[in-house]
């Protein structure tokens, strides 16, 4: 892996050299494009045949494959517990408190504190479509924020035609609720535009992150298609949860989109028309966050520059009936 990193560094350096002042000539070439291989963060849940979460599994219980190539897990975490480093022999040791951090996994993403808790981005639809249920939705989101694990961080974004960053990512619940309560009702709904911008922000944050969308579905202003936004979420490894305040059958297109987008990113869609159902949906999202596993790995050499299929397998025989919910794969980003 280190060799690959060095190679990439050289490619970048050569590209930069080629563009320095004075070296420009007509014959000069554009810098070569290569695939940039970042650390992959993979979050998934394991449930039994009755849909109950399965907890207590260990790194050695899992096998992660990318296009069929077995990957070496770098870190492992369950729920909001601190991540542990997975050593070559399969044993683990705590990341937090490791002296000097010199043996931590490489890079910023590998910092111990980056893997504690979840960065939850809430995307709240304040368009005209939500006008009637605006205040109840606000209450339900406030409850959700209060109920998040202490280790989690939360950001509150709202949208109608444009996105508004009501509260930046914070561990201070009051600050987040303050931002939430400042939201104003808007006009058109550009859900997928806003979701894309939210994903772009989330992608910049190291560690585990999810997006929880609270909307009733219709979109009358987005320029980007749900599937393109889904692809970004998939590539960035960010599960999307959607709580729709609409009934499934009221808007079958939006419902189908929500199902597809959430399933493909490892999240879930809830159709919760009543306030009580919305509270239950938020509770379920919280449970999901608390009962999921997060592993990180640096992908093994793979010539595939397109979509790489991820498979999570449980090694032990007992667990063969378990169901795993994870994103199906990702596309490595092009690097310059």
């Amino acid at each position: 892996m280190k060799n690959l990193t060095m190679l990439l560094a050289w490619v970048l350096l050569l590209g930069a050299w080629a563009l320095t002042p004075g070296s420009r000539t007509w014959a000069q070439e554009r810098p070569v494009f290569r695939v940039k291989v970042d650390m992959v963060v993979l979050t998934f849940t394991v449930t039994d045949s009755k849909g109950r979460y399965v907890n207590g599994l260990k790194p050695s219980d899992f096998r992660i494959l990318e296009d069929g190539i077995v990957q070496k897990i770098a870190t492992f975490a369950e729920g909001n517990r601190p991540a542990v480093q997975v050593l070559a022999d399969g044993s683990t040791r705590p990341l937090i408190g490791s002296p000097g951090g010199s043996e931590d996994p490489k890079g910023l993403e590998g910092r111990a504190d980056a893997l504690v808790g979840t960065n939850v981005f809430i995307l709240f639809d304040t368009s005209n479509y939500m006008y009637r249920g605006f205040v109840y939705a606000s209450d339900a989101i406030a409850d959700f924020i209060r109920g998040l694990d202490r280790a989690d961080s939360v950001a509150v974004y709202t949208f109608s035609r444009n996105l508004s960053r009501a509260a930046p990512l914070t561990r201070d619940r009051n600050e987040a609720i303050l931002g939430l309560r400042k939201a104003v009702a808007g006009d058109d709904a550009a859900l997928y535009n806003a979701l894309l911008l939210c994903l772009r922000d989330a992608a910049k944050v190291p560690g585990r992150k999810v997006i929880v969308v609270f909307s009733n579905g219709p979109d009358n202003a987005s320029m980007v298609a749900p599937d393109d936004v889904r692809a970004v979420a998939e590539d960035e490894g960010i599960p999307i949860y959607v709580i729709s305040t609409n009934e499934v059958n009221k808007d079958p297109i939006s419902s189908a989109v929500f199902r597809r987008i959430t399933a493909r990113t490892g999240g879930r869609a809830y159709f919760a028309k009543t306030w009580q159902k919305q509270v239950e949906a938020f509770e379920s999202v919280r449970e999901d966050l608390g009962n999921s596993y997060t592993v990180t790995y640096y992908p093994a050499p793979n010539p595939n520059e397109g979509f790489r299929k991820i498979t999570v397998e449980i090694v032990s025989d007992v667990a063969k009936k378990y169901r795993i919910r994870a994103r199906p794969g990702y596309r490595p980003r092009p690097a310059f």
Partner: protein
Amino acid sequence: MRRIRLVVLGVLASLHPLAGQDVVARARELERRGEAAEARQLLRRAAENAPHDAAVLSAYAEFLDRYRDPAAREVYDKLLGLLNRSDQRSARAATARRLVLLSLMAGDRAGAARYLEAYRAAGGGEWPAGVRLETPPAAEGPYIEIPGPFESFARMAAVSQETPPGELLAALARNVVTNGYQASSGNEALEPTEYMKLLVRYISQARELERFAGAEKVIRVESCESPQAGELLRILGYRMRGACGSEVVLETVNATRAFLTIDSGFPVAELEQALRTNRPFVYEFKPTRVPILYGADYWLGAREKGGGDFIDAYLADPALCRLYLGLSKLDRETADELRKAVPVQRLRAFAHVLDFYGGMFEIRNGRALVPGGARAERAWEELVGVSPSKGAEFFERLISKDDGWLASFFDALARIHGPVKDYLTEPERMKRFYMAVRGRVTSPGPARPVFRANTEMLLLTHRLRLDPDGRPHIPGNLEIWKNLFIKHPHGKYDGRLTRLASTWTQPDDLIEALFALCRKAVENEPLKIFMALSDINRYRSKPLEAATVDRLARKYRDLGAQYSIFNDAPTVSDKTILQFVDATESIDRIRNSALRADTAGTMQALVGIWQILCRQGAIPASEADAALAGLLAPFAEINDAKELFDAGRNGVALLLKAAGVPADQRPQDRLLDLLAGTAQPSDPDAHARLVEEMTRILEAQKLISLNTLFELADHLEALGRGEKLNTALINRIASRIAELQLPRTFLSSVERNAFAFGYWTERHIEAQRRLNLQAAIERAGTDAGRLAEIRGSLAPLLRDTLVGLNYAHYAPPGAQVLYTNPQFVRSHDFLGMQGTNQTWRATDVFGSGWPSNAGGRLVGSLSGLAYALAEAEQNFMVPSREQALIWGDLVPQMILSAKIPRWWNVSPSQMHWVGLHMRYAESLVAEASLDSELRRRVLESLSRLALPARVRRVASALEVFDVREAWNSITPLEAFALAREILESKTGPENLFAAEIRRMAAEAPDRINYQVISRAFGTPKPTLTNSYQPELLYLRTLPTLMGYSSRIMAESWESNTLYWAALADEMHLPPAQLNLLIPEWTRQTVERIFATHLEDWPAVLRSLRNVGEDIRLRARKEMLVDQKASLE
């Protein structure tokens, strides 16, 4: 790199101190070479090393002054101290004089008064002795009270919270008029909209809260258990869940009330927190005092039914609001005269006319000022029926005449100046043109709709051109226009005009007909044709020939959107223009729709690149015509995809050749270089970044490079000669094709067919996906014919890459759509939906907002690509304020103005020249506060671009020495124009700015003049001038207009680039950096606009200045770091 140079320079300066005079000379030399940062460093060092050297201090202070550095005051002050100890009285007076002005600009009146004393003590006697600079006591005018805090009311009323309190009622009035009421379904009465219902409910809730707050006007809840908590929560629509303490949570109990609570910004989260921690909650809840024109009684007197609070009456009466809005647009003197002379009920009846067309009314000394001045007064008297000498009576009659047509004519003429105004206000002609506008039936008037309906008249008066003989410019000749009206290609324009056309003998006859058409509610095609062809001629040294004009006029409906292309290369010949028309007709005849789309796309993409390269000067004017003719030639007859591919490839070769690129270069790389700006950029790093941004976009769109496509085409030819198959090359293309995914939709095929949406574009992508090159080549073997067919199969791929290069060039900052939707370029629909023909129409954004589709896409030609891309991107802007308005029409134009011009060939001197003009203007404004004669001239100059009400505001501010307020009311364009006018008159103050401006212009007259500056720092105006050429037209900001919303207003806003240029000059940035910085600064400006309505350009100005101030602060911090580094 620059920082290192500065540090080295600093070290050298400290090691080898130069004599004072040498330093000054050296610094001037550096500055002249465009190395202002180095000059600054040198002077600073010298001033530190020789603090008693007056020459050095003076040079340093003047240097800082020229670059608008606030530190100039401090250095001048030191200099004054030094001079005080000498006998140089005149130098002392000059320094003190400058300090007076700088202090006024900084808003420091006490400092200004102090320096004024010093100035007089040194013998300065320029300003009258009676000038006193104390702050006058603020005179409090009438006001009303609105329940609750300003911010809450503003949120609920959809008014920007940055609105000054004095303008709140006018802003509210506009919202009430446009959004407050709608036609009722049952009867003729208006019924309140949801906006109005919520606002009224909010006021009711605010009153309850005021009562709760008691006499102290403070909402106080001592603890969670206190009885006030329950009562407050009831008013707010909430209740507590959980026991008092950390468990307590507020939840909605009354959704209507809770909505108002949240939407008005009541601090419900803080209340909840106080209850949870059992601490007192204290919130000041005072009513808002809002200044009101003439007092509430005046307005309440206008109502048919009296009584109630002013705010309730105001909200309930849109006509009253409109009157308030109309009167608030007049300057105070004029409004006062009208108010005194005309009963309020009568004014109210014509409030809509006053609102739209009253902004240019002016009464001075009881006389109405009319367009055309004294010469036209008699004609106005005849038209209105009252002499302009009876000011108020004249305007009263004007607004009541002909349903507003005469007022709108007055407005259209009053807004312009110069020879066209003289031509149009020639008394007989003016009356004749008005009678044409008025027609026989005046209803409906132009002030009835939501937007002003005299759009075409404004366009005609603003864009009419006169020939050197003083007659209007008529493209071609009068016969062509007569024939157009008589034998019109698409049906009659107007029966009466068609009959009259045969009698036309003079250009005035045609202009009269165009005025007559201005009153039509439908699209005014002849005027548009006239303007488009006049604009083509405006840029050409030789006007279009009559036959060309005739052909273009008749093809306008189909091809009008394409005509702006010719304005980027005024040397293009009539023959080539006609060749373009022929090519479009030939393409339209292609029966195979896929081939037709590919041919149109390829041709338009090549012409688009040609247009960009001509605009940027990469293709010299002498080569432009031949290049266009050459690339168009094969498109005269395209029979199959092979020919199309060859035509595309030939076009690329011609473009590169015309730009001087040797034939052996790789086409894609060189085209990217050229599209980024210039072949030999002055700042290679900045250039490389632009190229990289474009490359990223092409990668995100998964487009195949021209290099690969042409290499493959050559290889196919070689295979025919028996060469060996290059598998690596084939695989490279195959893998890229394999990445193409069809856009996934959630519609069934039946539904999709029913909508017919995306049918053609999906076919285009599907055809590419089916392309199996390897198999096709294997099947073809060495058969040259079959291999040529495979070359033809590359034509759609070539089209996409060429189209992609256009997209990449115009990509707005952020370019979220281009980075996210990998099919965006390929989805460009050159045909349009079935049954329509969009091929040559302006680019349009289509299909946004359907979760079920494959995302928005662009439809039509590439002629409006820059605008359409900006339009698609505007909803990805993230406003900094929760309620800010991202403003359709204005924002795309702002983005377009930041993307189309490039500044590679701009010199630091040109940028500094703009900066000096701004500085000179600011200085003039400051001096005008002390010198009444100069004030008169400044205001006179300002009145050519600003509306009378604003000129009056500036005058009032200057009268009380509030220079900052005056300066903040002036736009950068107005400031630049003011400096220019005073300089050209050679009667203004001769200070260091004027001297430097003249010196620079004299030293390089061909590079530093107003024409060059117009080209460098102007804005493109595709709607107003049919051209993407950046230029300054010195336009008065136009209002929103029917049919164009705020697009024309946005194009008339010419201030941004001038402002950025002056800012970059202050920070000593190299002009090439503007290519990267202006798009980014523009994005920040858009995100910080906090506007109330579509004509709220003061909000744009505020945002521009706020962003500029932030940039300045950051740059000064960096300069301090540089200084520190050089010291160390």
